[in-house]
């Protein structure tokens, strides 16, 4: 145990050494700002991607356990009154294995759903509105939707079954595309940040060429010199990355709040209901900061080691 402790103490001592003592005027002062801007963009993109992925998950969970049956207001092939046609459909549904419940939606609920689009006209008594039945499936039930649709059509002409797949499929594809785009932005920003660190470190190497050569000639190992640069980049990128994350989250919640406030009450707001980011998402954002700092530090280390390899 003391061996491990000694080793850790030795590493900590090595990382605390600052023999080059980079002077304030030639330190890479712009590095934290660049890293902050990069992290800001990456955090914004990642938060948006995670939020969309979360929303898509909620949509899927909310809709896969149910189907909606729509009975047309009028059907030439079936002149029975609407209530008789509804009863015929409910009878078929209740006899179908895998269906836990089938509940017709009240007329007032259907009117409320249409109001955002039709306004007060949705409640007009002469408007032929279809009847809707909300069908809840038993957990894990694999319902044969086309067969059910055929049986329902036979029971009451003008009946359609909507398992939400078309609507949900398009939305999920869009959400997945947005998530992929967000991740691509994160990777591109990471590459740009690495490039910036390379240039900043090279500038530092040029400014301290004499001191580096002196340490080299005195027997300093490459790792010793590289550590001094990497240590500086570590602290500076940590400051920038944390600042960028806080700013990115503030911007994300500002935009999300504005979007929520401007969505039409009803369909849009319902689609985006739920928390914007969950605990797992915050952990991923924390990981983004850690990854940014690690990439910057390792890039600085690698740049210095590569430059030193050119000395004998």
């Amino acid at each position, binding site marked *: 145990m003391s061996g491990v402790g000694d080793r850790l103490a030795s590493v900590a001592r090595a990382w605390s*050494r600052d*023999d*080059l*003592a980079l*002077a304030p005027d030639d330190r890479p002062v712009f590095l934290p700002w660049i890293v902050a801007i990069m992290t800001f963009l990456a955090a914004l993109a990642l938060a948006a991607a995670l939020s969309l992925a979360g929303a898509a998950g909620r949509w899927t969970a909310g809709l896969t356990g149910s189907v909606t049956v729509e009975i047309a207001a009028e059907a030439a092939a079936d002149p029975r009154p609407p209530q008789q046609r509804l009863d015929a459909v409910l009878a078929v549904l209740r006899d179908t294995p895998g269906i836990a419940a089938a509940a017709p939606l009240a007329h007032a609920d259907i009117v409320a759903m249409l109001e955002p689009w039709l306004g007060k006209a949705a409640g007009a008594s002469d408007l032929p509105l279809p009847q809707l039945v909300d069908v809840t499936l038993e957990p894990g039930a694999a319902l044969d939707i086309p067969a059910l649709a055929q049986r329902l059509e036979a029971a009451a002409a003008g009946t359609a079954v909507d398992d939400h797949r078309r609507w949900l499929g398009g939305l999920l594809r869009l959400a997945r595309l947005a998530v992929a785009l967000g991740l691509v932005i994160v990777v591109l920003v990471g590459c740009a940040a690495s490039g910036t660190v390379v240039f900043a470190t090279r500038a530092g190497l040029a400014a301290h060429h*004499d*001191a580096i*050569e*002196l*340490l*080299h*000639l*005195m*027997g*300093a*190992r490459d790792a*010793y010199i590289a550590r001094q640069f990497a240590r500086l980049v570590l602290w500076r990128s940590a400051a920038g990355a944390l600042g960028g994350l806080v700013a990115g989250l503030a911007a994300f919640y500002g935009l999300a709040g504005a979007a929520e406030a401007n969505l039409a009450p009803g369909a849009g707001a319902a689609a985006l209901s739920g928390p914007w980011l969950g605990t797992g998402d915050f952990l991923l954002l924390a990981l983004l900061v850690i990854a940014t700092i690690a990439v910057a530090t390792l890039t600085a280390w690698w740049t210095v080691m590569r430059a030193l*390899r050119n000395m*004998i």
Partner: protein
Amino acid sequence: MRYGLGPEVLRDISLALAPGSFHFLTGASGAGKSSLLRLMYLAQLPSRGRLTVFGRNVATAPRGELPALRRRIGVVFQDFRLLDHLSALDNVALPLRLAGADEMQLRAHVVELLTWVGLGDHLNARPLTMSGGQKQRVAIARAVISRPRLLLADEPTGNVDDQIALRLLYLFEELYKMGTTVVIATHNAGLVQRFGHPELRLEDGTLNLIERQAA
């Protein structure tokens, strides 16, 4: 040896320094003294020929072995090459810190040596506030602090008065008597005569050995 594609600075040099020997390296300005020292302290590789340091062929030794070889060599640079942002104490302590010496023992050792070279009152002075002679003494203290096996000095007495120059030469003599191999590049013919060590004279890029007796 040549720098890049330039002309050969040194050629046909055959030299073996016996362990524990003391040599003065002389020659006119531009004769190649500093270049020969650069080869010896492993800042440069010969463009052809063979360079062996402490029994290791430098051209074939793995790069990872060179730092250990360099730590056995103390160098006094002509332009001192002190780190301006470090105090005299920290400059001198640098070789010991690179070797991982204990910080408490290191300080006592450095203070003792700086006091010996007459800089006991300037432990925390930065090179920018020091005279040429003071910087030179700090550079010498840094070169000898880790008791190197090979000490190379490029004009180590160029910026100090005769009394200090003698004192520094006696320090080199002490190290020589303790087994350190010493090579001092100098223009000071008086010192060369006085100490009587063999002289390596560089002329037209070639090296001649001149044996001497102490005056």
